[in-house]
């Protein structure tokens, strides 16, 4: 059954028939299983991995380390959720180390991201400091290498 997910993870377009061919599991079972996973949330959604740079869209991404003031009896959940709800925020993670939260911010320009950090993010209650790192180039994203694939150097017919 795990094989079904492996196929879908690399090709969300794969039809039940194709998944059945590739895994040897019969088509009706594939259909039922996928429906069950969609219902239970094992499959969250289907999405395309888009290389926006290649599309020509000039988006700007920054990773921002956020320091949160500790307060007795309160964890990080309320601050993290408050940050996560902003449309500009792509990801929020609680991390170990000197800072507390590492968040990913996306905007149309450096100014837009900088304004968001200065005016929204740093103004949130209990956020005491931010450290912003603008992303210069992506080499690998979501387990996917974004560099050009290595050329096939095999001879065309070999024993």
């Amino acid at each position, binding site marked *: 059954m795990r*094989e079904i997910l492996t196929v879908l993870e690399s090709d969300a377009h794969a039809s039940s028939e194709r998944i059945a*061919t*590739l*895994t040897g599991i019969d088509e009706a079972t594939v259909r039922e299983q996928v429906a069950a996973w969609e219902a239970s949330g094992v499959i969250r959604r289907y999405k395309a991995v888009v290389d926006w740079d290649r599309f020509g869209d000039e988006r700007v991404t920054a990773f921002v380390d956020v320091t949160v003031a500790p307060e007795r009896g309160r964890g990080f959940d309320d601050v993290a959720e408050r940050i996560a709800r902003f449309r500009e925020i792509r990801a929020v993670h609680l991390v170990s180390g000197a800072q507390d939260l590492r968040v990913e911010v996306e905007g149309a320009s450096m100014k837009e991201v900088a304004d968001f950090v200065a005016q929204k993010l740093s103004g949130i209650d209990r956020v005491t400091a931010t450290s912003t790192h603008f992303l210069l180039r992506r080499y690998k994203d979501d387990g996917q290498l974004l560099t050009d694939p290595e050329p096939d150097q095999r*001879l*065309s*017919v070999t*024993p």
Partner: protein
Amino acid sequence: MSTPQKPFSRVVEAIPPSGIRKFFDLAQSMQGVISLGVGEPDFPTPWSAREAAIHALEHGATTYTSNSGLLELREAVTDDLADRYGVRYRAADECLVTSGVSEGLDLTLRALLNPGDEVIVPEPCYVAYQPCVAFAGGVPVPVALDPGDAYRLDPAIIGAAITENTKAILFGSPSNPTGSAQSAADIEALAALAREHDLWLLSDEIYDRLTYHGTHTPVSAAAWERTVLLGGFSKSYAMTGWRVGYVCAPEPLAQLMHRIHQYTMLCAPHMSQIAALEAMRTAQDDVDEMVADYDRRRRLFSKGLDELGLTCPVPGGAFYVFPSITATGMSSEEFAEGLLTQEKVAVVPGNVFGPSGEGHVRCSYATALPQLEQALERISRFIGS
């Protein structure tokens, strides 16, 4: 001035060049060919192994190693075999690191054969088996396996070829070119036959990690005392160009092989041995992913061939299918040549793997899924035309 007029080696001159060569030359001269003719993985070597070799080169691993190969590598190999096969070889004197299975096979035959000794070679089989027997002074005795019986190593067929001169049986499971993987029962029966006639079993297990119906059946587990185990990293770890493999055999034979190796190859490439060791230590996940990927392609491609009326037993291992093309009325060579020139798909005609391969072609599915699907469309167009 002419070169000396005295004759060259009669043994070598009697062996024809590989029938694969012709198709290689033809395919190389064309653009836009989808090749199903490649006997090696389409994946690059796992990065951890490549990175280890780069580091090794930077730190001077450019020397000879001991003739037997790095002890750490031999220990890793013998421990791995104990784990996966349930057999124990001593790393010190029963395991030799070679430049691929090809060298291991050559050493085995040269250490084993006296002039006139016969080696039974079930076919269709890997193109080098019979020439290597002849180069070592032996007499290859080809025995045709039955495609209708999924190329099973039927002890009755093998047994009928045994004479008082027979010394060994040479075979590979999973097989290049048929992809068939022998069952435990057939290996047991073959071991019994070998015991009865006091024969060696020369077992090429280079595809041992690439099996799709359950696990691999190791020959050494059935007949340790008379098995020469030939293995390596080329196929399962996608390391063909590194030229590193191993051979394991009981001590007296292993030592004779070591003697030839120390005077000829000396050792397998140092940096390749380091890469192989790193692959064994860290690349199991890569291997699992590759095997899962081959398995998906195998299902898609054999189903596609079946729908085109090109029937083949569903292969249990390696990355080959060996469909029958007799329904088209063409010979293997006509089919392969026509498919290449008309539709630009390269396959290998079955007869190059032995006369019983006639009427079949070897297709390698070590190619990305979209290309396999496109190849199926082209094959369909070709046989429909």
